[in-house]
């Protein structure tokens, strides 16, 4: 059975592109488009890896990550954060809150696939 990626991102065309890429690469993909009930989506889907955008409606990716890491079962769940922000303080914040990896937009498809493969098979 394929491992599952939960993509939490609100931009529809980015969702479609990443969805296409990851499925072609052999991963099972679920998507969720808002921050407000993202934690519920994580609990419901029980993904093997989360690709999490920072700027989301309702609740930011940082807040979702912070809350996720307070859950015993999800302390070690791999999380790849995506953001358009490029300052060191944003990278530091993501690391501090427990992001496994951090990628800035725009990213290359090859880079995204490479990182997901590495995170799924460390």
């Amino acid at each position, binding site marked *: 059975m394929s491992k599952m990626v939960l993509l939490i991102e609100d931009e529809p065309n*980015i969702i*479609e592109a990443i969805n*296409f890429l990851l499925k072609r690469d052999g991963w099972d993909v679920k998507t969720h488009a808002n921050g407000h009930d993202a934690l519920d989506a994580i609990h419901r889907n029980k993904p093997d890896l989360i690709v999490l955008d920072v700027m989301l409606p309702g609740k930011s990716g940082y807040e979702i990550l912070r809350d996720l890491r307070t859950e015993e079962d999800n302390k070690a769940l791999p999380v790849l954060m995506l953001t*358009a922000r490029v300052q060191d303080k944003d990278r530091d914040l993501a690391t501090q809150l427990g992001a496994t990896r951090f990628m800035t937009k*725009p990213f290359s498809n090859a880079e995204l696939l490479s990182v997901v493969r590495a995170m799924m098979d460390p």
Partner: protein
Amino acid sequence: MSERKTSAGVRIRQRRRSVGLRQAELASRAGISASYLNLIEHDRRRIGGKLLTKIADVLGVQATFLSEGVQATKINHIRELATPLAHEEAVQQVEDLATRFPMWVDFILNQERQKRALEAQVNALTERLSHDPRLSASLHDVLSTVTAIRSMSAILSDTENIEPEWQMRFIRNMNEESLRLSDTAGALVQFLETDAKNASGLLSPQEEVENFLETSGFDFPFLENENDDFEKELHALLDTAGLSPSGIWLLKSYFVQAREDVRKLPLAVAQSFVSASGLDPVGLAQMAGVDVPTAMRRLATLPMKQKSEACGLLICDAGGNFLFHRPIEGFRVLRYASACPLLPIFDALHFPMRPIRRVLAQNTSDVTIFDTISFAQATESSANKEQPVVKSYMFIRALNKSGANAKVQRLGPSCALCSVKDCDSRRELSLVEEGF
């Protein structure tokens, strides 16, 4: 008549007329009788010292302008500019410079004016680029769109045997994102090229309201009328103001507060006080039996025709966020960037109900100084009785430097634009400091 032969009395009369003050009004504000002022203006009495300073203060000029004319004022100005920067001997040579090379003096003063104008531009641009949430949101939008286009175009070019329906889907999506990118890029260019005051669609609701009020000169007769048409007139004005929904909401709140201020402090009372005592909000509050913030709002929003000198007002909430800003020329306040923590409006939050008076100057080379009074007050919240609403107010008046006896505190609009050295409150390196 050459400048040297024009007397102080004549200069006083000329200046008084140019600012639209009647003799009785100037006399009253200077603390002398109208007949005595008349004698001074016709050179039948000499004038100097404290009285000259007081009259200069009321007329908004330096005392030397009245006593010795423009040339002496220029010399003083150059001397003030040079003092923090130049060797003492050079400062003493200023008068010689002015006498032998008057065109160079004009050139130096012109450079100073240009420098201030450029500093104002830098302030505005720094604020926009660093902290404007609309710019930040637009740039984020651009990056998200570019990400989608980049990803989809790579899929189309790199994926062998891509199904036709996916191909069409990605081509259609790319077209959509391209259109969105072109709109966002166009709006960004417009934002960066256009002066914020002229681009009302790009202003924050607070800026919209402040621009609207400033453009109207804060002159709204319906506010002062005692009839019952206030609601009707207000709605008519809101309908034609041309602001965003948030701007309309804020403007309505402004007028509701202003109407309450008018009820507590009728125009005739405010005018009479200003004529007699000038722009003194603490004095006005005591005389009229109102709170200091009411007096501050009333004075700051009186139309200029009701007062002869400009004043500014800054209001912030308990979090230090600026809620309202009536600017005064020369005193820069950055709306988005973090303001200087030394501003007394913030100190007042720690000492509510206590007026805090400070004389301020922005940066080391500025010659304009400002008399400020800050006052914080807590009012009961209708929504949450246990947590009052705290606001702090800072009333700002330009001060004639020769009249300033109090110690002047120097600060910048923000750390990035502040040239004050050795400040324990500095948060970041200054753009204007040498060696940055």
